């Protein structure tokens, strides 16, 4: 009962007091690592990335061409009907300019990240990736982009086999 309660429990301590050892604490760092089997759909997708191509699956019931590919259509809840290569070009659906790294530390060179709707897949079928070869202030919604691949000998079957997507003029596609 908010107004009837006169004091609320909780004893604040400063984060610095942890670091300086002024309050009793116990520290622990877990020593585990993970290795994930990429699964049926993603293994094929990653192998195709190694070949410099993006592959989708399609569902004949709803007609969707799906990227990232999946072995079952989550809308129709039935197996996908087959595989189909799509283009390595697309359109920027939304983007952000990141000035922080994964641990929230600050970085000097910002990272441009975007959801890129892939050409040849159904509308709105996007993937998350980075945008390069452009000043972050110049990036626009709806901009056409194309994958910049690592050289074949450096590809390992990872989403990072695409270094980033770079802007291209529409007529060059």
């Amino acid at each position, binding site marked *: *009962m*908010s*107004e*009837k*309660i006169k004091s*609320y*429990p*909780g*004893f*604040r*301590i*400063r*984060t610095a007091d*942890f670091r300086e050892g002024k*309050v009793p604490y116990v520290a*622990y760092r*877990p020593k585990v690592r*993970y290795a*994930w089997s*990429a*699964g049926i759909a*993603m293994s094929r997708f*990653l192998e195709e990335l190694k070949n410099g191509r993006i592959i989708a699956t399609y569902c004949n019931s709803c007609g969707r061409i*799906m*990227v*990232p590919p*999946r072995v079952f259509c*989550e809308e129709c809840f039935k197996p996908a009907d087959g595989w189909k290569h799509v283009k390595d070009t697309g359109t920027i*659906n*939304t*983007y*952000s*300019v*990141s*000035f*922080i*790294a*994964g*641990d*929230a*530390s600050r970085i000097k060179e910002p*990272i441009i*990240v*975007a*959801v890129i709707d892939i050409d040849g897949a159904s509308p*709105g*079928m*996007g*993937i*998350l*990736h*980075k945008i390069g070869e452009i000043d*972050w202030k110049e990036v626009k*919604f709806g901009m056409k982009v194309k994958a910049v691949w690592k050289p074949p000998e450096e590809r390992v079957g*990872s*989403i*990072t086999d695409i270094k980033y997507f770079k802007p291209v003029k529409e007529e060059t596609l």
Partner: protein
Amino acid sequence: MFGKKRVAIVGAGLTLFRRNLKETGKELAYEAAKMALDASGLELRDIQTVVMGTAPDAFDGVHMKGEYLADGAGARGKPYVRVFVGGGTGVFTPLAGWWHVASGQFDTCLVVCEEKMSSCFPHPAYAFTTIFDNILARPLGTTLIWIFALEMHRYMHKHNLKKEQIARVAVKNKKNALDHPCAQLGANITVEDVLNSEVLCWPVQRLDISPTSDGAAALVLASEDVAKKITDNPVWIDGVGWCIDSTLWTNRDLYYPDYVEYAARMAYRMAGIKNPPKEIDLAEPYDPFDYKELHHMEGLLLCRKGEAPKLTEEGVTQRDGDLPICPSGGLLGVGNPIAAAGLMKVCEVFWQLRGEAGKRQVPGDPRTGLAQAWGDLMQYGSVIILRR
């Protein structure tokens, strides 16, 4: 009639929300649970079942967190379950409590939510990177704010919004929080302060974001027959709704949260609400970021798509406006210990409907209020509607 029994909230408890509290999660859970029990006039032996809500184990580095927290939640020797739907947990937990009682299986239920984010170093954001797809996204060096920035930017683009329009939410909520005794970040700030704050992931800036926090909250639920015996002013849970969308978030248009709308429609149907903006007297939509309050007002059908920034600008969502939104100060102002923050919103609606919110009390004798939480990969909505 939904469920076999009508369910009331008869007591609420809340701890301070702070960046770093000395209490363990178990101790915080105890404090909130004990306060809620004392407020309801019941004792632990009167409680038949306990539902616990707490977010990722990774924050605490404690596996079996539900079990770990059970003693603090008063659950020893009782039917007990921990529920978890990411950021949606804080409002989902009383929904789970509701069905325990509405089913007819129990007459009393203690609902407790706890979060302690301060134990994770160098920053809890690092634990959050595990939210991203392990095969496709994490190798890109993801950080949590990316998903919010991408969603916020899409929302701004679709409705042609400016940052100033969104920043007003942060200004309002931090100001509201000045009147909340548990608040971590109550402040008088200006739109300019938000616009001049550090850019983290454009368009997200420092003052667009709620803080990391420790804290706990609790409610006591009772069936109609018990509630009427122990209190003259029960607050009824008249609507519940929840819904999930796909984790394949790059295949969705992020400008609008369909799953929140589905959850809201479920709750409105149950509560018999036909015209939400007219029939809801105050709302506590989930506001971990300022744009999310607007996004959720639209998903909750409290206004048309793209209209929430205008209502905010016109002052409609102020505490003394026609539709007060986040009178507590929300996550932006009170703080964001994930599960506890969602339940804090339900506590606020409970106190507002009982006329006990003190300096935060919205005028006009409110009868119907709503709280909502949201979570995971921009995919989960949980909605509760309370009536006096």
